[in-house]
């Protein structure tokens, strides 16, 4: 450990100018970001642009700092003075880790803490979000950046490698993975992929530090990236077929409540109800079935519904992956591949439909009185901005929340109404931003006054459900959205 500290002190002595520039960037961001938050008195487009530039520059500064510190004792090459000195590889790796922790991560976390505090939010309440943010920054940036630095010899080479990674990732998102956002992944698949990816990258990093076999490390890095993309492509696109569908089914057991049913209603949807309301991919069409969920207790909500269907006719059978669906009042919308639709859309087919979703039930309700600035459930804080509350949370808001507003007596120049106003917050899992403050506009259908009573009702999970429906004969073309 003494050797690691010794190397760390040397790195600090050499790289303090770079660290200084990085800290100044964070400082500027910490001062400037609150000035462009909704509700701020200052609305300067140039400042907003500068903040956007900083949100790009700060991750870049992560990269430069990490590459610079790793290249202090470059692992690539045969002429570095340190490779014939009594360095222990684990001390060297620990020294670099310490530098990244103290000079890269710590200032960043301090900046985020300051912003949380500045937004009037509790740092204690933000701790779990902060931890997840650190985890995500480490997984997406620090560990890959460190590995890139460990297998390259110069900053230019490292930038080239980073650019290649981004180009491959972008190509993947734009081409191979296009449309997969509609598909449901198996439970925990993302977490498993992350653990696998981080494990592989960390293993390669340790191997490179222990052996300096750069050629093998580079091959292993590319192989890990290819494996990651392949698994991501397979899982998110449901391309692993039946096993993936089975894994999803396992996580959503068939509903045992006999009262709860997915009922396909007879007849067609009225014309006014057949307009498209999903953004399906170019290779798909939207199907809108008249359907209803019967037996859901009062006040309960359905969250994140997904549909998988099987079409059967003589000599033909097709089973779709689990895909995002919309469940509205007496209508169920879901996408269908155009090739499948073109083949069987105008023919009588047997439809086996499965719907899975999460049930939400109303949890604790809390009534708060709106003011210029006021605390709200979920460790949030709201301010008034032009007659509408804007609520701030640190990193995330974990529960879907329904807000009901009842106008107070205090006159504020807004015509009052006895009718309550409603708004809903979705779940906002956002950990990957530089600015830790999540801003959520409360979109009531009309302005409200300070001193209005706001009832926040958080919805909590009441379990998962899976329901099935059979239609012996149907022509899908008659249910295509227009």
């Amino acid at each position, binding site marked *: 450990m003494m050797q690691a500290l*010794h190397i760390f002190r040397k790195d600090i002595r*050499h790289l303090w100018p770079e660290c200084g520039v990085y800290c100044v960037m964070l400082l500027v961001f910490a001062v400037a970001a609150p000035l462009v938050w909704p509700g701020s008195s200052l609305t300067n487009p140039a400042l907003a642009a500068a903040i956007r530039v900083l949100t790009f520059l700060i991750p870049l500064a992560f990269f430069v700092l990490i590459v610079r510190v790793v290249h202090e004792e470059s692992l690539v090459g045969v*002429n570095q003075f340190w*490779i*014939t*000195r*009594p*360095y222990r590889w684990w001390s060297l790796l620990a020294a670099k880790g310490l530098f990244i922790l103290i000079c890269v991560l710590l200032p960043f976390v301090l900046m985020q803490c300051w912003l949380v505090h500045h937004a009037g939010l509790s740092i204690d309440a933000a701790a779990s979000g902060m931890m997840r943010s650190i985890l995500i920054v480490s997984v997406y940036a620090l560990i890959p950046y460190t590995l890139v630095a460990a297998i390259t010899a110069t900053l230019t080479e490292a930038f080239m490698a980073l650019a290649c990674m981004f180009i491959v990732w972008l190509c993947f998102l734009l081409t191979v993975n296009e449309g997969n956002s509609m598909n449901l992944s198996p439970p925990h698949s993302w977490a498993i992929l992350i653990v696998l990816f981080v494990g592989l990258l960390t293993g390669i990093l340790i191997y490179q530090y222990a052996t300096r076999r750069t050629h093998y490390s580079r091959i292993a890095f590319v192989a890990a990236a290819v494996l990651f993309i392949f698994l991501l492509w397979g899982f998110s696109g449901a391309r692993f077929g039946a096993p993936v569908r089975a894994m999803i089914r396992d996580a959503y057991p068939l509903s045992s409540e006999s009262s709860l049913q997915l009922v396909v209603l007879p007849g067609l949807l009225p014309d006014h109800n057949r307009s498209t309301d999903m953004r399906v991919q170019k290779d798909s069409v939207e199907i809108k079935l008249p359907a209803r969920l019967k037996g859901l207790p009062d006040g309960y909500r359905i969250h994140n519904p997904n549909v998988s269907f099987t079409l059967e006719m003589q000599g033909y059978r097709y089973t779709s992956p689990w895909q995002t669906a919309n469940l509205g009042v007496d209508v169920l919308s879901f996408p269908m591949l155009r090739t499948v639709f073109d083949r069987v859309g105008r023919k009588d087919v047997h439809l086996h439909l499965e719907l899975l979703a999460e049930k939400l039930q109303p949890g604790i309700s809390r009534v708060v009185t709106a003011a210029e600035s006021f605390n709200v459930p979920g460790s949030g804080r709201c301010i008034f901005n032009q007659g509408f509350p804007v609520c701030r949370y640190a990193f995330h808001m974990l529960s879907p929340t329904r807000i009901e507003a009842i106008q107070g007596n205090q006159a504020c120049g807004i015509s009052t109404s006895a009718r309550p106003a409603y708004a809903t917050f979705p779940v906002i899992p956002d950990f990957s931003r530089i600015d830790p403050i999540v801003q959520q506009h409360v979109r009531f259908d009309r302005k409200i006054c300070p001193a209005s009573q706001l009832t926040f009702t958080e919805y909590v999970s009441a379990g998962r459900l899976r329901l099935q429906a059979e239609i012996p004969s149907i022509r899908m073309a008659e249910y295509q959205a227009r």
Partner: protein
Amino acid sequence: MSRPAAAIEVHHLSKKFDGNEVLSSFDLSVPHGSIFALLGHNGAGKTTLIKLLLNILVPSSGSATVLGQPTTSLAGPEFTRIGYISENQELPEWMTVQGLLDYLRPFYPAWDETGLLEDLDLPADRKLGQLSRGMRMKAMFASVLAFKPSLILMDEPFAGLDVVTRDMLIRTLMGRLDSKDERSGRSETTILISSHELAEIETFATHVAFLHEGRLLFAEPMANLIMRFREVTVRLSSPEPVATCRRFPADWLSPELSGAILRFTYTGANMEDPETIVRREIPGAEHIDSDPMNLQTIFLALAKANRTRHGSLR
């Protein structure tokens, strides 16, 4: 723990780069306390051999031990006993000379830099990046000599240096190696040095090895080498018998006939007197001169012999 017989032992070591063999399989033993000169022209494989010995490169086949440790397992702690000086070594340019020594000090249990900067006439507060080639080499010497290594591997340490600097480095090096082993009386530090500065090498090397195109031609004590090589000039009564014969013993290198004068390098003088063998091989020899050779002339003769067909008359 008993000390291994040799500081460096090489067994069938070879190295290939992209299928090209840069070092052919050979054996080599560097005795403890020796100053072992590694000779050979550019591309002979000297640097590759040194890097293999330091575990900077991995051998394609064979093995080697350094101070009793297999080279492929050389890592951090072993380098407290092994020093490396190379003309190609990258130094932390931003550090001052004193900064480098201060930084390295905690890595070594037996660090003593007393008088080193003065002996080498090094400016303590100058950044390494601002130093001349000679000064950089001095800084490297200081950073190695300060920890009193048991083995120093030097790759062309004197390349491009002026005579004064070379002399200063050699004097400092020799001055710091004054501790002797009680039993053998030899220095406790072994040095393996590759260099083209043959005149300097000859003044202090105890052993010498010659590499040619990745092959080890010989390795032996310097005294033996000097004793073995003779530059022989033979005045013949008539060139005809020699010119028609055209074959000479294998230890006559690069024979050249110019009129009635035959010149060659004799490599077996330690076994048989040159005059005796010449009179036996060439009965018509009128007068025979046999002059001792220095390392530089031996090196040139060997290089020349390897360029021409061994033993044939030019």
